[in-house]
């Protein structure tokens, strides 16, 4: 990078009077913090993927294949904890939210830059503790990522450490959300009214509220598990007047809204990408913005659909089933808006759009299977089977994952000032999408046939589908390898690009690529909406 000189390197270039590593690790620049997050998240993602591949390999045949039962329990627990708490929850908001949000609204930074750096450190500490839970104490945790009591209260494995990590990560997530809310309220550039916020900002706003309002419940749940284990508190122990079902309520009051922390920002990314590559104003700006808030609100009321079979009253089951269907409405509204935007657009199938289209398809599969789970009658049949595993991987990997990859390809030229190989990027998207279906569709079938989740062994009649699924996991691995390699090549030696290679209309594209240290030299005055392409000039090198 030395060849390009400091000026051309924007915020990536050296800071006057500071050591290089220090200037990164203690940076208060939102762009640098976002990149730090992205790096850590991608490292953890690779760890999670390797654990996932190990799970699939173990399941390629009945009986023991590559690991024992106890190891298997630890591996799927760690896979879940790493993927949920260290990858998908922080993924888009902490990485791209940090990098893009201030640029999107014409601000110099987030509202609390030092707090921002602090929350990154909390993330790092949480990640270190979570990983060290693997190697210390009496063996890695084996409870599954949900830490259900009573098992989590009595198992001798390292649950305490893992739960502490979750608590710290939750704190980091709260601080990020809080920072974003204040930023969006206080730091919008003149002319950037609520009706002119890019949709990505709207989804971050809704997400931030969920982070602030739901995560404390996770915090208290985590503290109570520690209290159960260390002090024998008995709050969830029926022998001492406690109740394990209460644990499930507390856990899902956070963790269901958390799935919207995972998916909303991805929807925001897709809402940014689709208009740019159809060169058309987004269809129904208001409904997309409102549906983000509606998802956040309604999504907070449906937690008990994870507990239909746990012995709630029939009335409760009915109510939660109904509410679950209500959440599907705003999600569907978004899908209709995206499709309507594409309709008769001037479509350019660049990699970000490919990822966005795959997102829409995969998210639809995930959402529809969600409805199967959300109606109590069918859920009783498929609860805790591979159907659930298939469902949430379609939404999390197909949704959040593809949203993240789409964001990586969309903002790559802005962040690094270089371009990756576009044909190869498109190919990697397609390989990934195919692999994902080969990997997870068999799980839906397995679930309908009655294969329970979290089992280390299975009856021989399930073998065929498991083999297909495992082969799918290899295709996915190939797609990921190709994608990361391509991005890495682009980062090192990609062609240089100008300020606005995609011809997008949001504010970040008016800055040089990469953007300078202090964003806007003069505070921008916003006079047009984020999807008015008429005046936009393409600047591709």
């Amino acid at each position, binding site marked *: 990078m030395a060849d390009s000189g400091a000026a051309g390197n924007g915020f990536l270039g050296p800071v006057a009077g500071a050591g290089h590593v220090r200037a990164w690790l203690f940076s208060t620049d939102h762009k640098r913090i976002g990149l730090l997050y992205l790096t850590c998240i991608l490292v953890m993602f690779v760890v999670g993927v390797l654990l996932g591949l190990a799970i699939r390999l173990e399941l390629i045949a009945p009986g023991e294949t590559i690991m024992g039962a106890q190891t298997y329990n630890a591996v799927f627990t760690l896979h879940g904890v790493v993927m949920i708490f260290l990858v998908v929850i922080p993924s888009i908001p902490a990485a791209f939210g940090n990098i893009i949000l201030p640029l999107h609204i014409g601000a*110099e*930074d987030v*509202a*609390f830059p030092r*707090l921002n750096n602090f929350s990154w450190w909390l993330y790092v500490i949480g990640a270190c503790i979570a990983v060290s839970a693997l190697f210390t104490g009496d063996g890695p945790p084996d409870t599954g990522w949900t830490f259900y009591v009573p098992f989590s209260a009595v198992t001798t494995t390292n649950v305490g450490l893992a739960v502490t990590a979750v608590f710290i990560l939750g704190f980091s997530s*709260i601080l990020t959300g*809080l*920072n974003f*809310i*204040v930023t969006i*309220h*206080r*730091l919008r550039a003149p002319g950037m009214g609520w009706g002119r916020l890019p949709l990505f900002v709207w989804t971050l706003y809704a997400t931030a509220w969920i982070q*602030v*309002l739901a*995560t*404390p*419940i996770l*915090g*208290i*749940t985590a*503290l*109570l598990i520690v*209290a159960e284990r260390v*002090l*024998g*508190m*008995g*709050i969830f122990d029926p*022998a*001492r*007047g*406690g*109740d394990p079902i*209460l644990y499930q309520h*507390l856990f899902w009051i956070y963790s269901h809204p958390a799935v919207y922390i995972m998916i909303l920002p991805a929807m925001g990314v897709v809402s940014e990408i689709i208009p740019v590559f159809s060169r058309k104003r987004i269809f129904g700006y208001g409904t997309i913005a409102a549906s983000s808030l509606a998802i956040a609100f309604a999504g907070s009321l449906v937690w008990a659909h994870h507990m239909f079979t746990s012995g709630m009253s029939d009335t409760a089951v009915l109510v939660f089933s109904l509410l679950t269907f209500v959440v599907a409405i705003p999600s569907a509204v978004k899908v209709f808006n995206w499709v309507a935007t594409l309709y008769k657009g001037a479509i350019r199938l660049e990699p970000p759009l490919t990822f966005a289209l795959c997102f829409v398809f995969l998210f639809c599969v995930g959402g529809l299977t969600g409805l199967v789970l959300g109606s109590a009658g069918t859920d009783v049949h498929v609860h805790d089977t591979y159907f659930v595993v298939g469902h949430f991987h379609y939404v999390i990997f197909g949704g959040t994952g593809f949203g993240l990859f789409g964001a990586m390809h969309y903002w790559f030229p802005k962040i690094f000032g270089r371009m990756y190989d576009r044909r190869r990027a498109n190919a990697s998207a397609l390989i990934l999408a195919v692999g994902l279906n080969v990997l997870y569709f068999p799980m839906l079938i397995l679930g309908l046939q009655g294969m329970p989740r979290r089992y280390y062994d299975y009856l021989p009649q399930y073998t065929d589908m498991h083999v297909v699924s495992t082969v799918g996991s290899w295709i996915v691995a190939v797609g990921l390898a190709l994608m990361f390699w391509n991005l890495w090549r682009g980062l090192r030696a990609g062609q240089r690009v100008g300020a606005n290679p995609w011809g997008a209309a949001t504010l970040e594209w008016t800055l040089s690529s990469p953007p300078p240290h*202090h964003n806007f030299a003069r505070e921008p005055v916003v006079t047009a909406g984020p999807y008015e392409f008429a005046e936009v000039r393409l600047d591709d090198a």
Partner: protein
Amino acid sequence: MTHEVQPDYIGAKMGMWLFLFTEILLFGGLFVLFAVHLSRYPAGFHAGSATLSVPFGSANTVVLITSSLTMALAVTAVQRGERRRTLALLGATVGLAGVFLINKFFEWSAKFQHGIYPGSEHMLEMEKGQAAFYAMYYAMTGLHGLHVVIGMCVIAWVMGLVAAGRVHRDRFVTLENAGLYWHLVDLVWIYLFPLFYLVT
């Protein structure tokens, strides 16, 4: 740059209020558990509550409310630019918090002496409702006590800032936010006190 020199007062307050929300929700989880347990075991909770010392609890309530007062006075003092008085009032707040903790220590030790603490033999043999009561008691007053300790650290830190002249009459939002935090700690106790000591 700009906001280093002139901090965004409204933004800082907004951030603090949001944070206080999260604290309320953190305790909220426990309040929900308390409600469920209370409705399930009214008799056990009644009996458990009768064993707590109302004088102790009342004394602590008075101590905390007084500390809220000294905190509020400290905010006024800093706004008037009276640095010595600000420091004295903050010192008094930390001192009162210490009294609260000492009081709590004696109260808990008395219970421990009777073998009532989480995980003890005695708790295992206890009637379920009463066991649930004590579990909630230790969980909620324990978490509250932890917040008292955190609050003391925060106030001590702000005292350092005041002494160093970094918090003063034109720039006091840090102190004000610390005050808000302390009032929250006080407020939570004001709910805990009747729930545990006076439900009988």
